[in-house]
Protein backbone atom coordinates (compact mmCIF):
# COMPACT_ATOMS: atom_id res chain seq x y z
CA UNK A 1 0.00 0.00 0.00
CA UNK A 2 3.01 2.32 -0.16
CA UNK A 3 2.52 5.38 -2.31
CA UNK A 4 4.79 7.93 -3.92
CA UNK A 5 3.63 11.53 -3.71
CA UNK A 6 6.10 13.73 -5.54
CA UNK A 7 9.50 13.19 -3.94
CA UNK A 8 8.06 11.52 -0.85
CA UNK A 9 7.16 7.86 -0.39
CA UNK A 10 4.59 7.02 2.28
CA UNK A 11 4.00 3.50 3.66
CA UNK A 12 0.21 3.93 3.43
CA UNK A 13 -2.14 6.01 1.27
CA UNK A 14 -4.36 6.79 4.26
CA UNK A 15 -4.49 10.23 5.83
CA UNK A 16 -6.69 12.21 8.12
CA UNK A 17 -8.45 15.15 6.47
CA UNK A 18 -7.57 18.66 7.56
CA UNK A 19 -9.98 20.05 10.15
CA UNK A 20 -11.33 16.60 11.03
CA UNK A 21 -8.51 15.33 13.23
CA UNK A 22 -7.26 18.31 15.26
CA UNK A 23 -3.46 18.16 15.61
CA UNK A 24 -2.67 14.64 16.77
CA UNK A 25 -3.08 14.16 20.51
CA UNK A 26 -6.83 13.58 20.38
CA UNK A 27 -6.78 10.69 17.90
CA UNK A 28 -3.58 9.21 19.36
CA UNK A 29 -5.85 8.02 22.19
CA UNK A 30 -7.56 5.73 19.68
CA UNK A 31 -4.84 4.49 17.33
CA UNK A 32 -1.13 4.77 16.59
CA UNK A 33 -0.94 7.78 14.30
CA UNK A 34 2.24 6.37 12.75
CA UNK A 35 -0.03 3.81 11.06
CA UNK A 36 -1.25 6.59 8.76
CA UNK A 37 0.59 7.49 5.59
CA UNK A 38 0.40 11.07 6.85
CA UNK A 39 -1.37 12.97 9.58
CA UNK A 40 -2.98 16.06 8.07
CA UNK A 41 -3.26 18.92 10.56
CA UNK A 42 -5.97 21.55 10.83
CA UNK A 43 -5.30 24.56 8.60
CA UNK A 44 -3.09 26.98 10.45
CA UNK A 45 -2.89 30.71 9.74
CA UNK A 46 -0.38 33.38 10.77
CA UNK A 47 -2.13 34.54 13.96
CA UNK A 48 -4.25 32.83 16.63
CA UNK A 49 -7.92 32.67 15.62
CA UNK A 50 -10.90 32.13 17.89
CA UNK A 51 -13.11 30.88 15.07
CA UNK A 52 -16.78 31.74 14.92
CA UNK A 53 -19.48 31.69 17.56
CA UNK A 54 -21.90 28.82 17.98
CA UNK A 55 -23.90 26.97 16.75
CA UNK A 56 -21.11 25.94 14.40
CA UNK A 57 -22.67 22.77 13.13
CA UNK A 58 -25.83 21.35 11.63
CA UNK A 59 -26.38 17.70 10.88
CA UNK A 60 -27.58 17.06 7.33
CA UNK A 61 -28.61 13.85 5.51
CA UNK A 62 -25.46 11.68 5.40
CA UNK A 63 -23.34 14.66 6.31
CA UNK A 64 -22.97 17.87 8.20
CA UNK A 65 -22.53 21.59 7.71
CA UNK A 66 -19.83 23.41 9.66
CA UNK A 67 -18.83 27.01 10.15
CA UNK A 68 -15.86 26.65 12.50
CA UNK A 69 -14.01 29.63 11.01
CA UNK A 70 -10.48 28.16 11.00
CA UNK A 71 -10.00 28.28 14.75
CA UNK A 72 -6.35 27.77 15.51
CA UNK A 73 -3.30 28.73 17.57
CA UNK A 74 -1.37 30.57 14.83
CA UNK A 75 1.74 29.20 13.11
CA UNK A 76 4.26 30.02 15.86
CA UNK A 77 2.38 28.19 18.60
CA UNK A 78 1.57 25.42 16.13
CA UNK A 79 5.20 24.65 15.31
CA UNK A 80 6.32 24.96 18.95
CA UNK A 81 3.61 22.78 20.44
CA UNK A 82 1.65 20.75 17.89
CA UNK A 83 4.29 20.03 15.26
CA UNK A 84 6.87 19.35 17.98
CA UNK A 85 4.46 16.83 19.51
CA UNK A 86 3.79 15.19 16.13
CA UNK A 87 7.53 14.93 15.50
CA UNK A 88 8.12 13.34 18.88
CA UNK A 89 5.23 10.93 18.20
CA UNK A 90 6.90 9.92 14.94
CA UNK A 91 4.00 11.06 12.76
CA UNK A 92 4.60 11.90 9.12
CA UNK A 93 2.84 15.23 8.95
CA UNK A 94 1.13 16.96 6.05
CA UNK A 95 0.67 20.50 7.31
CA UNK A 96 -2.35 22.39 6.04
CA UNK A 97 -1.79 26.12 5.79
CA UNK A 98 -4.15 29.01 5.09
CA UNK A 99 -4.09 32.77 4.81
CA UNK A 100 -6.26 35.81 4.27
CA UNK A 101 -3.87 36.99 1.56
CA UNK A 102 -1.38 35.20 -0.66
CA UNK A 103 1.39 36.91 1.31
CA UNK A 104 0.06 35.43 4.55
CA UNK A 105 0.25 31.92 3.05
CA UNK A 106 3.90 32.59 2.21
CA UNK A 107 4.65 33.89 5.71
CA UNK A 108 3.08 30.82 7.29
CA UNK A 109 5.12 28.54 5.00
CA UNK A 110 8.31 30.44 5.88
CA UNK A 111 7.72 30.07 9.63
CA UNK A 112 6.99 26.39 9.14
CA UNK A 113 10.18 25.94 7.10
CA UNK A 114 12.35 27.52 9.77
CA UNK A 115 10.91 25.51 12.65
CA UNK A 116 12.91 22.91 14.58
CA UNK A 117 10.26 20.26 13.91
CA UNK A 118 10.24 20.73 10.12
CA UNK A 119 11.76 17.28 9.58
CA UNK A 120 8.39 15.79 10.63
CA UNK A 121 6.80 17.48 7.59
CA UNK A 122 6.26 15.25 4.56
CA UNK A 123 4.37 17.91 2.64
CA UNK A 124 2.35 21.08 2.78
CA UNK A 125 -1.30 21.25 1.83
CA UNK A 126 -2.28 24.72 0.72
CA UNK A 127 -5.88 25.34 1.74
CA UNK A 128 -7.01 27.78 -0.90
CA UNK A 129 -10.58 26.55 -0.68
CA UNK A 130 -11.94 26.89 2.86
CA UNK A 131 -15.44 28.38 2.69
CA UNK A 132 -15.19 29.71 6.24
CA UNK A 133 -12.87 32.66 5.69
CA UNK A 134 -13.35 36.35 4.97
CA UNK A 135 -14.45 36.40 1.36
CA UNK A 136 -16.53 33.29 1.69
CA UNK A 137 -17.91 32.06 -1.57
CA UNK A 138 -15.00 33.82 -3.25
CA UNK A 139 -12.18 31.58 -2.08
CA UNK A 140 -8.80 31.66 -3.83
CA UNK A 141 -9.54 28.33 -5.48
CA UNK A 142 -12.48 29.85 -7.38
CA UNK A 143 -9.99 31.85 -9.44
CA UNK A 144 -7.10 30.17 -11.34
CA UNK A 145 -4.93 33.31 -11.17
CA UNK A 146 -5.39 33.79 -7.42
CA UNK A 147 -4.75 30.08 -6.84
CA UNK A 148 -1.56 30.17 -8.90
CA UNK A 149 -0.27 33.19 -7.01
CA UNK A 150 -0.70 31.51 -3.62
CA UNK A 151 0.88 28.26 -4.79
CA UNK A 152 3.86 30.05 -6.36
CA UNK A 153 4.52 32.11 -3.24
CA UNK A 154 4.32 29.06 -0.97
CA UNK A 155 6.51 27.03 -3.34
CA UNK A 156 9.23 29.68 -3.09
CA UNK A 157 9.35 29.38 0.69
CA UNK A 158 9.79 25.62 0.84
CA UNK A 159 12.65 23.27 -0.09
CA UNK A 160 12.26 21.69 -3.53
CA UNK A 161 11.87 18.21 -2.00
CA UNK A 162 8.90 19.23 0.18
CA UNK A 163 5.80 18.42 -1.85
CA UNK A 164 3.16 21.15 -2.10
CA UNK A 165 -0.46 20.09 -2.56
CA UNK A 166 -3.16 22.56 -3.55
CA UNK A 167 -6.54 21.79 -1.97
CA UNK A 168 -9.33 22.57 -4.41
CA UNK A 169 -13.01 23.35 -4.11
CA UNK A 170 -15.64 21.71 -6.31
CA UNK A 171 -17.64 24.97 -6.19
CA UNK A 172 -16.28 26.12 -9.55
CA UNK A 173 -17.31 25.88 -13.19
CA UNK A 174 -14.06 24.24 -14.29
CA UNK A 175 -11.98 22.49 -11.65
CA UNK A 176 -9.49 21.33 -14.28
CA UNK A 177 -8.69 24.94 -15.10
CA UNK A 178 -7.86 25.67 -11.46
CA UNK A 179 -5.81 22.46 -11.23
CA UNK A 180 -3.84 23.48 -14.33
CA UNK A 181 -3.05 26.87 -12.83
CA UNK A 182 -1.89 25.31 -9.54
CA UNK A 183 0.36 22.72 -11.19
CA UNK A 184 1.84 25.31 -13.51
CA UNK A 185 2.60 27.48 -10.47
CA UNK A 186 4.53 24.65 -8.84
CA UNK A 187 2.05 22.41 -7.03
CA UNK A 188 3.42 18.86 -6.83
CA UNK A 189 -0.06 17.44 -6.33
CA UNK A 190 -3.71 18.21 -5.74
CA UNK A 191 -6.02 17.49 -2.85
CA UNK A 192 -9.66 17.31 -3.80
CA UNK A 193 -12.18 18.14 -2.60
CA UNK A 194 -12.81 20.67 0.15
CA UNK A 195 -16.31 21.09 1.58
CA UNK A 196 -19.09 22.52 -0.57
CA UNK A 197 -20.64 25.82 0.43
CA UNK A 198 -24.06 25.11 1.88
CA UNK A 199 -26.71 26.46 4.17
CA UNK A 200 -29.27 25.10 6.62
CA UNK A 201 -32.22 27.00 8.03
CA UNK A 202 -33.61 26.12 11.47
CA UNK A 203 -37.30 25.64 10.70
CA UNK A 204 -38.37 26.11 14.33
CA UNK A 205 -36.79 29.54 14.67
CA UNK A 206 -36.83 30.28 10.92
CA UNK A 207 -33.29 31.59 10.98
CA UNK A 208 -29.94 30.29 9.69
CA UNK A 209 -28.94 27.32 11.83
CA UNK A 210 -25.20 28.03 12.06
CA UNK A 211 -23.78 31.27 13.41
CA UNK A 212 -21.72 31.71 10.24
CA UNK A 213 -24.97 31.66 8.18
CA UNK A 214 -23.39 29.53 5.44
CA UNK A 215 -20.97 26.68 6.02
CA UNK A 216 -19.05 23.80 4.51
CA UNK A 217 -20.94 20.62 3.64
CA UNK A 218 -19.08 17.36 4.22
CA UNK A 219 -19.73 13.66 4.74
CA UNK A 220 -20.87 10.76 2.54
CA UNK A 221 -23.44 13.06 0.91
CA UNK A 222 -20.66 14.78 -1.05
CA UNK A 223 -18.71 11.67 -2.13
CA UNK A 224 -20.13 11.62 -5.68
CA UNK A 225 -18.91 15.20 -6.10
CA UNK A 226 -15.42 14.17 -4.99
CA UNK A 227 -15.40 11.20 -7.37
CA UNK A 228 -16.49 13.48 -10.23
CA UNK A 229 -13.84 16.11 -9.49
CA UNK A 230 -11.06 13.51 -9.23
CA UNK A 231 -12.29 11.80 -12.41
CA UNK A 232 -12.35 15.03 -14.43
CA UNK A 233 -8.88 16.02 -13.29
CA UNK A 234 -7.38 12.59 -13.84
CA UNK A 235 -8.99 12.45 -17.30
CA UNK A 236 -7.32 15.75 -18.16
CA UNK A 237 -3.96 14.23 -17.13
CA UNK A 238 -4.57 11.16 -19.29
CA UNK A 239 -5.44 13.41 -22.23
CA UNK A 240 -2.26 15.41 -21.73
CA UNK A 241 -4.09 18.63 -20.87
CA UNK A 242 -2.44 18.66 -17.45
CA UNK A 243 0.90 17.22 -16.26
CA UNK A 244 0.39 14.00 -14.32
CA UNK A 245 0.68 14.77 -10.61
CA UNK A 246 -0.66 12.77 -7.66
CA UNK A 247 -4.19 13.44 -6.46
CA UNK A 248 -5.09 13.02 -2.80
CA UNK A 249 -8.80 12.11 -2.73
CA UNK A 250 -11.05 13.36 0.04
CA UNK A 251 -14.80 13.64 0.41
CA UNK A 252 -17.28 11.36 2.11
CA UNK A 253 -15.06 8.33 2.62
CA UNK A 254 -16.48 6.10 5.34
CA UNK A 255 -15.23 2.61 4.43
CA UNK A 256 -12.74 0.78 2.23
CA UNK A 257 -15.14 0.62 -0.69
CA UNK A 258 -15.58 4.40 -0.62
CA UNK A 259 -11.80 4.81 -0.62
CA UNK A 260 -11.46 2.40 -3.56
CA UNK A 261 -13.97 4.51 -5.50
CA UNK A 262 -11.76 7.58 -5.16
CA UNK A 263 -8.66 5.53 -6.09
CA UNK A 264 -10.35 4.07 -9.17
CA UNK A 265 -11.28 7.61 -10.24
CA UNK A 266 -7.65 8.67 -9.99
CA UNK A 267 -6.61 9.30 -6.39
CA UNK A 268 -3.21 8.01 -5.19
CA UNK A 269 -3.96 8.66 -1.53
CA UNK A 270 -7.14 9.02 0.49
CA UNK A 271 -8.10 11.27 3.39
CA UNK A 272 -10.86 10.42 5.85
CA UNK A 273 -12.70 13.41 7.26
CA UNK A 274 -16.19 13.59 8.71
CA UNK A 275 -16.35 9.79 9.14
CA UNK A 276 -13.81 10.27 11.95
CA UNK A 277 -16.51 12.04 13.96
CA UNK A 278 -18.62 8.89 13.65
CA UNK A 279 -15.74 6.47 14.28
CA UNK A 280 -12.46 7.85 15.71
CA UNK A 281 -10.71 4.80 14.24
CA UNK A 282 -12.01 5.42 10.72
CA UNK A 283 -8.72 6.69 9.19
CA UNK A 284 -6.91 3.41 9.96
CA UNK A 285 -9.94 1.13 9.66
CA UNK A 286 -10.62 2.37 6.12
CA UNK A 287 -6.97 1.68 5.24
CA UNK A 288 -7.26 -1.93 6.38
CA UNK A 289 -10.50 -2.36 4.45
CA UNK A 290 -8.96 -0.82 1.33
CA UNK A 291 -5.95 -3.15 1.51
CA UNK A 292 -8.24 -6.18 1.75
CA UNK A 293 -10.37 -5.03 -1.17
CA UNK A 294 -7.32 -4.42 -3.38
CA UNK A 295 -6.02 -7.88 -2.55
CA UNK A 296 -9.42 -9.48 -3.25
CA UNK A 297 -9.47 -7.77 -6.64
CA UNK A 298 -6.00 -8.99 -7.53
CA UNK A 299 -4.10 -5.69 -7.35
CA UNK A 300 -0.55 -6.25 -6.18
CA UNK A 301 0.10 -2.56 -5.66
CA UNK A 302 -2.19 0.35 -4.90
CA UNK A 303 -0.58 2.22 -7.79
CA UNK A 304 -2.06 -0.30 -10.24
CA UNK A 305 -5.57 0.65 -9.13
CA UNK A 306 -5.10 4.42 -9.40
CA UNK A 307 -7.44 5.69 -12.13
CA UNK A 308 -8.25 2.15 -13.26
CA UNK A 309 -11.88 3.04 -13.97
CA UNK A 310 -10.84 5.35 -16.82
CA UNK A 311 -10.07 2.37 -19.03
CA UNK A 312 -13.36 0.70 -18.23
CA UNK A 313 -16.07 3.04 -19.45
CA UNK A 314 -19.48 1.41 -19.46
Amino acid sequence: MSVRLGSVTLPSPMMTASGCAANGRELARFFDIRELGAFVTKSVMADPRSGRGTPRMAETPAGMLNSIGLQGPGISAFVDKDLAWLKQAGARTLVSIAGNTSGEFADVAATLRSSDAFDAVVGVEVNISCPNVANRGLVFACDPMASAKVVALVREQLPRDTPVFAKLTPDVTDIVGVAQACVKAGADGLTMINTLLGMVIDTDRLRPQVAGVTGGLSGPAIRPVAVRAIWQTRAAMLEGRLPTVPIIGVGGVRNGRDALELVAAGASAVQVGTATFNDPNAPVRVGRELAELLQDKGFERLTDAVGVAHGRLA
Partner: protein
Amino acid sequence: MSAATTRHTSQGSGVVQVTGELIATRRVGAYHHLTFVAPGLAELARPGQFVALAVGGDTSATLLRRCFSIHKVSPSGTYGGTVDVVISAVGPGTRWLSTLRAHDEVDIVGPLGRPFPLPTEPVACVLVGGGYGSAPLFWLAEALRERGCHVELVLGAATESKLFGVLEARRYGDGVSVTTDDGSAGTKGWVSDVLPDVIRRTSAAVVYGCGPMGMLKSITDVATAEGAVAQVAVEESMACGVGVCMTCVMPVTGNDGATRMVRSCVEGPVFRGDRVRWDAFVDGVCRVPADTVGAPRVGGH
Protein backbone atom coordinates in the same frame (compact mmCIF):
# COMPACT_ATOMS: atom_id res chain seq x y z
CA MET B 1 -22.94 -11.52 19.95
CA SER B 2 -23.57 -11.75 23.65
CA ALA B 3 -20.36 -10.31 25.03
CA ALA B 4 -19.48 -6.79 24.03
CA THR B 5 -15.98 -6.27 22.73
CA THR B 6 -13.41 -3.57 23.30
CA ARG B 7 -11.40 -2.55 20.28
CA HIS B 8 -8.92 -0.17 18.77
CA THR B 9 -7.94 1.96 21.70
CA SER B 10 -4.39 2.83 22.59
CA GLN B 11 -3.36 1.30 25.89
CA GLY B 12 -3.59 3.59 28.87
CA SER B 13 -5.35 6.37 26.96
CA GLY B 14 -8.17 6.51 29.51
CA VAL B 15 -10.85 6.02 26.87
CA VAL B 16 -12.31 2.99 25.12
CA GLN B 17 -14.40 2.40 22.03
CA VAL B 18 -16.66 -0.58 22.61
CA THR B 19 -19.65 -2.29 21.10
CA GLY B 20 -22.15 -1.88 23.92
CA GLU B 21 -24.96 -4.36 24.33
CA LEU B 22 -28.19 -2.90 25.65
CA ILE B 23 -29.40 -4.97 28.59
CA ALA B 24 -32.15 -2.76 30.00
CA THR B 25 -34.31 0.07 28.67
CA ARG B 26 -37.16 1.69 30.56
CA ARG B 27 -39.27 4.82 30.54
CA VAL B 28 -38.74 7.21 33.44
CA GLY B 29 -41.16 10.11 33.25
CA ALA B 30 -40.44 11.93 29.99
CA TYR B 31 -37.10 10.13 29.58
CA HIS B 32 -35.55 6.77 28.69
CA HIS B 33 -33.04 5.11 31.00
CA LEU B 34 -30.65 2.78 29.12
CA THR B 35 -28.14 0.29 30.55
CA PHE B 36 -25.34 -1.01 28.33
CA VAL B 37 -22.69 -3.63 28.94
CA ALA B 38 -19.54 -1.69 28.07
CA PRO B 39 -16.39 -3.57 29.10
CA GLY B 40 -13.48 -1.47 30.24
CA LEU B 41 -15.45 1.77 30.37
CA ALA B 42 -16.91 1.59 33.86
CA GLU B 43 -13.51 1.14 35.51
CA LEU B 44 -12.23 4.37 33.94
CA ALA B 45 -15.25 6.63 34.46
CA ARG B 46 -15.75 9.39 37.04
CA PRO B 47 -18.87 11.45 37.83
CA GLY B 48 -19.35 14.27 35.34
CA GLN B 49 -17.82 12.42 32.40
CA PHE B 50 -19.87 11.45 29.38
CA VAL B 51 -20.16 8.90 26.59
CA ALA B 52 -20.58 9.42 22.84
CA LEU B 53 -22.98 6.99 21.19
CA ALA B 54 -23.14 6.27 17.46
CA VAL B 55 -26.76 6.14 16.30
CA GLY B 56 -28.64 4.36 13.55
CA GLY B 57 -26.24 1.46 12.93
CA ASP B 58 -23.20 1.03 10.65
CA THR B 59 -24.75 2.44 7.49
CA SER B 60 -26.80 5.17 9.15
CA ALA B 61 -27.10 8.52 7.37
CA THR B 62 -27.07 10.08 10.84
CA LEU B 63 -23.31 10.30 11.26
CA LEU B 64 -22.75 12.45 14.29
CA ARG B 65 -22.45 10.93 17.73
CA ARG B 66 -24.86 11.75 20.53
CA CYS B 67 -23.24 12.63 23.84
CA PHE B 68 -24.80 11.87 27.23
CA SER B 69 -23.68 12.32 30.81
CA ILE B 70 -22.94 9.03 32.48
CA HIS B 71 -25.75 8.38 34.99
CA LYS B 72 -23.84 5.64 36.72
CA VAL B 73 -21.46 2.75 36.13
CA SER B 74 -21.21 -0.71 37.63
CA PRO B 75 -17.70 -2.09 37.17
CA SER B 76 -18.57 -5.67 38.04
CA GLY B 77 -22.22 -6.37 37.32
CA THR B 78 -23.61 -9.77 36.39
CA TYR B 79 -22.90 -9.05 32.72
CA GLY B 80 -19.57 -7.32 33.20
CA GLY B 81 -19.12 -3.57 33.50
CA THR B 82 -22.17 -1.55 32.65
CA VAL B 83 -22.84 2.10 31.92
CA ASP B 84 -26.21 3.85 32.33
CA VAL B 85 -27.42 6.93 30.48
CA VAL B 86 -30.66 8.88 30.52
CA ILE B 87 -31.88 10.28 27.22
CA SER B 88 -34.65 12.56 26.06
CA ALA B 89 -36.06 11.38 22.71
CA VAL B 90 -36.36 14.68 20.83
CA GLY B 91 -34.46 14.21 17.56
CA PRO B 92 -33.74 11.41 15.08
CA GLY B 93 -30.72 10.09 17.03
CA THR B 94 -32.31 10.02 20.46
CA ARG B 95 -35.55 8.63 19.04
CA TRP B 96 -33.56 5.77 17.49
CA LEU B 97 -31.88 5.09 20.83
CA SER B 98 -35.25 5.12 22.59
CA THR B 99 -36.61 2.38 20.30
CA LEU B 100 -33.72 -0.04 20.88
CA ARG B 101 -34.51 -3.34 22.55
CA ALA B 102 -32.53 -5.61 24.83
CA HIS B 103 -29.49 -7.18 23.11
CA ASP B 104 -29.31 -4.47 20.45
CA GLU B 105 -25.82 -3.02 20.05
CA VAL B 106 -24.51 0.53 20.04
CA ASP B 107 -20.96 1.73 19.44
CA ILE B 108 -19.87 3.61 22.56
CA VAL B 109 -16.85 5.86 23.10
CA GLY B 110 -16.01 6.88 26.63
CA PRO B 111 -15.48 7.93 29.27
CA LEU B 112 -14.95 11.41 27.83
CA GLY B 113 -14.32 14.85 29.28
CA ARG B 114 -13.20 16.06 32.66
CA PRO B 115 -15.11 14.88 35.75
CA PHE B 116 -16.48 17.03 38.55
CA PRO B 117 -13.59 18.04 40.82
CA LEU B 118 -14.14 16.74 44.36
CA PRO B 119 -13.29 18.83 47.43
CA THR B 120 -10.35 17.64 49.49
CA GLU B 121 -12.12 18.61 52.76
CA PRO B 122 -15.50 17.28 53.93
CA VAL B 123 -17.48 20.45 53.11
CA ALA B 124 -21.20 20.82 52.44
CA CYS B 125 -22.18 20.63 48.77
CA VAL B 126 -25.37 21.41 46.87
CA LEU B 127 -26.07 19.47 43.67
CA VAL B 128 -28.49 21.13 41.24
CA GLY B 129 -30.06 19.31 38.30
CA GLY B 130 -32.38 20.64 35.63
CA GLY B 131 -34.60 17.99 34.01
CA TYR B 132 -32.55 14.91 33.15
CA GLY B 133 -29.47 17.03 33.83
CA SER B 134 -29.72 15.49 37.29
CA ALA B 135 -28.63 12.11 35.83
CA PRO B 136 -24.92 12.36 36.79
CA LEU B 137 -25.57 13.91 40.22
CA PHE B 138 -26.54 10.81 42.21
CA TRP B 139 -23.25 9.11 41.49
CA LEU B 140 -21.50 12.39 42.35
CA ALA B 141 -23.48 12.54 45.62
CA GLU B 142 -22.22 9.09 46.49
CA ALA B 143 -18.60 10.09 45.84
CA LEU B 144 -19.00 13.25 47.94
CA ARG B 145 -20.56 11.41 50.86
CA GLU B 146 -17.73 8.88 50.79
CA ARG B 147 -15.52 11.90 51.48
CA GLY B 148 -17.67 12.93 54.41
CA CYS B 149 -19.44 15.79 52.63
CA HIS B 150 -22.96 16.87 53.57
CA VAL B 151 -24.93 16.62 50.31
CA GLU B 152 -28.15 18.41 49.40
CA LEU B 153 -29.89 18.06 46.06
CA VAL B 154 -32.06 20.58 44.23
CA LEU B 155 -33.99 19.20 41.28
CA GLY B 156 -35.94 21.43 38.93
CA ALA B 157 -37.94 21.04 35.73
CA ALA B 158 -40.74 22.65 33.76
CA THR B 159 -43.24 20.11 35.02
CA GLU B 160 -43.39 16.96 37.16
CA SER B 161 -42.90 14.46 34.28
CA LYS B 162 -39.67 16.23 33.30
CA LEU B 163 -38.06 15.77 36.72
CA PHE B 164 -35.58 12.92 36.91
CA GLY B 165 -34.65 10.91 39.98
CA VAL B 166 -36.66 12.56 42.76
CA LEU B 167 -37.07 9.27 44.62
CA GLU B 168 -33.42 8.32 44.11
CA ALA B 169 -32.39 11.73 45.39
CA ARG B 170 -33.85 11.03 48.83
CA ARG B 171 -31.52 8.02 49.08
CA TYR B 172 -28.42 9.83 47.85
CA GLY B 173 -28.79 13.19 49.54
CA ASP B 174 -29.07 14.54 53.09
CA GLY B 175 -31.77 16.90 51.87
CA VAL B 176 -33.78 17.29 48.67
CA SER B 177 -35.63 20.31 47.26
CA VAL B 178 -37.81 20.13 44.17
CA THR B 179 -39.07 22.97 41.98
CA THR B 180 -41.30 22.99 38.91
CA ASP B 181 -42.19 25.96 36.73
CA ASP B 182 -45.88 25.03 36.86
CA GLY B 183 -45.98 23.95 40.50
CA SER B 184 -47.01 20.36 39.60
CA ALA B 185 -44.38 19.09 42.06
CA GLY B 186 -42.40 20.75 44.86
CA THR B 187 -42.05 24.52 45.01
CA LYS B 188 -43.47 26.49 42.08
CA GLY B 189 -40.61 28.35 40.43
CA TRP B 190 -37.00 27.87 39.42
CA VAL B 191 -34.11 26.19 41.19
CA SER B 192 -32.58 29.65 41.64
CA ASP B 193 -35.58 30.60 43.82
CA VAL B 194 -34.74 28.00 46.47
CA LEU B 195 -30.97 27.70 45.98
CA PRO B 196 -29.87 30.71 48.10
CA ASP B 197 -31.66 29.32 51.17
CA VAL B 198 -30.17 25.86 50.69
CA ILE B 199 -26.66 27.27 50.36
CA ARG B 200 -27.11 29.48 53.46
CA ARG B 201 -28.72 26.77 55.58
CA THR B 202 -25.94 24.25 54.82
CA SER B 203 -23.06 26.76 54.55
CA ALA B 204 -22.25 25.00 51.28
CA ALA B 205 -18.80 25.61 49.82
CA VAL B 206 -19.46 24.07 46.42
CA VAL B 207 -22.51 24.06 44.16
CA TYR B 208 -22.48 21.47 41.37
CA GLY B 209 -24.82 21.96 38.43
CA CYS B 210 -25.93 20.09 35.35
CA GLY B 211 -28.75 21.17 33.06
CA PRO B 212 -29.67 23.81 30.48
CA MET B 213 -27.22 26.67 29.96
CA GLY B 214 -29.59 29.34 31.31
CA MET B 215 -29.93 27.39 34.53
CA LEU B 216 -26.17 26.96 34.84
CA LYS B 217 -25.75 30.71 34.55
CA SER B 218 -28.24 31.34 37.35
CA ILE B 219 -26.62 28.64 39.53
CA THR B 220 -23.30 30.41 39.02
CA ASP B 221 -24.82 33.80 39.87
CA VAL B 222 -26.43 32.49 43.06
CA ALA B 223 -23.37 30.51 44.17
CA THR B 224 -21.08 33.48 43.61
CA ALA B 225 -23.40 35.81 45.51
CA GLU B 226 -23.49 33.34 48.42
CA GLY B 227 -19.71 32.87 48.48
CA ALA B 228 -19.70 29.32 47.09
CA VAL B 229 -17.83 27.92 44.09
CA ALA B 230 -19.98 26.70 41.18
CA GLN B 231 -18.84 23.68 39.15
CA VAL B 232 -21.11 23.21 36.16
CA ALA B 233 -21.33 20.50 33.49
CA VAL B 234 -22.27 22.40 30.34
CA GLU B 235 -24.65 21.39 27.61
CA GLU B 236 -23.25 22.18 24.16
CA SER B 237 -23.95 20.31 20.95
CA MET B 238 -21.04 18.07 19.93
CA ALA B 239 -20.42 16.25 16.65
CA CYS B 240 -17.62 13.93 17.79
CA GLY B 241 -17.18 14.21 21.57
CA VAL B 242 -13.45 13.44 21.32
CA GLY B 243 -11.95 16.86 20.56
CA VAL B 244 -11.50 16.83 16.80
CA CYS B 245 -14.54 18.58 15.30
CA MET B 246 -14.31 21.96 17.10
CA THR B 247 -18.10 22.45 17.16
CA CYS B 248 -18.70 22.41 20.94
CA VAL B 249 -16.60 25.44 21.82
CA MET B 250 -17.55 28.18 24.27
CA PRO B 251 -15.79 31.23 25.69
CA VAL B 252 -14.07 30.38 28.97
CA THR B 253 -11.59 32.49 30.91
CA GLY B 254 -8.39 30.70 31.89
CA ASN B 255 -6.04 31.04 34.86
CA ASP B 256 -4.18 33.75 32.95
CA GLY B 257 -7.32 35.90 32.69
CA ALA B 258 -7.59 35.44 28.91
CA THR B 259 -10.80 34.20 27.29
CA ARG B 260 -10.53 31.46 24.70
CA MET B 261 -13.04 29.45 22.69
CA VAL B 262 -12.42 26.08 24.32
CA ARG B 263 -13.88 22.70 23.51
CA SER B 264 -16.44 21.61 26.05
CA CYS B 265 -15.75 17.93 25.20
CA VAL B 266 -12.09 17.84 26.21
CA GLU B 267 -11.53 20.97 28.30
CA GLY B 268 -15.02 20.45 29.84
CA PRO B 269 -17.78 19.52 30.15
CA VAL B 270 -17.24 20.62 33.76
CA PHE B 271 -16.09 24.21 34.16
CA ARG B 272 -15.92 26.52 37.14
CA GLY B 273 -19.07 28.54 36.65
CA ASP B 274 -17.37 31.90 37.14
CA ARG B 275 -14.96 31.14 34.29
CA VAL B 276 -17.69 30.77 31.67
CA ARG B 277 -18.51 33.93 29.71
CA TRP B 278 -22.27 33.72 30.17
CA ASP B 279 -22.60 37.23 28.70
CA ALA B 280 -21.88 35.73 25.26
CA PHE B 281 -24.96 33.47 25.24
CA VAL B 282 -28.14 35.02 23.87
CA ASP B 283 -31.18 33.20 22.46
CA GLY B 284 -29.49 29.92 21.55
CA VAL B 285 -26.46 31.60 20.01
CA CYS B 286 -23.03 32.14 21.55
CA ARG B 287 -21.06 35.04 20.12
CA VAL B 288 -17.30 35.38 20.42
CA PRO B 289 -16.57 38.07 23.05
CA ALA B 290 -14.46 40.88 21.55
CA ASP B 291 -11.65 40.30 24.08
CA THR B 292 -11.30 36.60 23.17
CA VAL B 293 -7.85 35.49 22.04
CA GLY B 294 -7.91 35.61 18.22
CA ALA B 295 -11.41 37.14 18.06
CA PRO B 296 -12.63 38.23 14.64
CA ARG B 297 -11.55 41.72 13.69
CA VAL B 298 -13.91 44.25 12.19
CA GLY B 299 -15.52 42.66 9.16
CA GLY B 300 -15.52 39.21 10.71
CA HIS B 301 -13.67 36.14 9.60
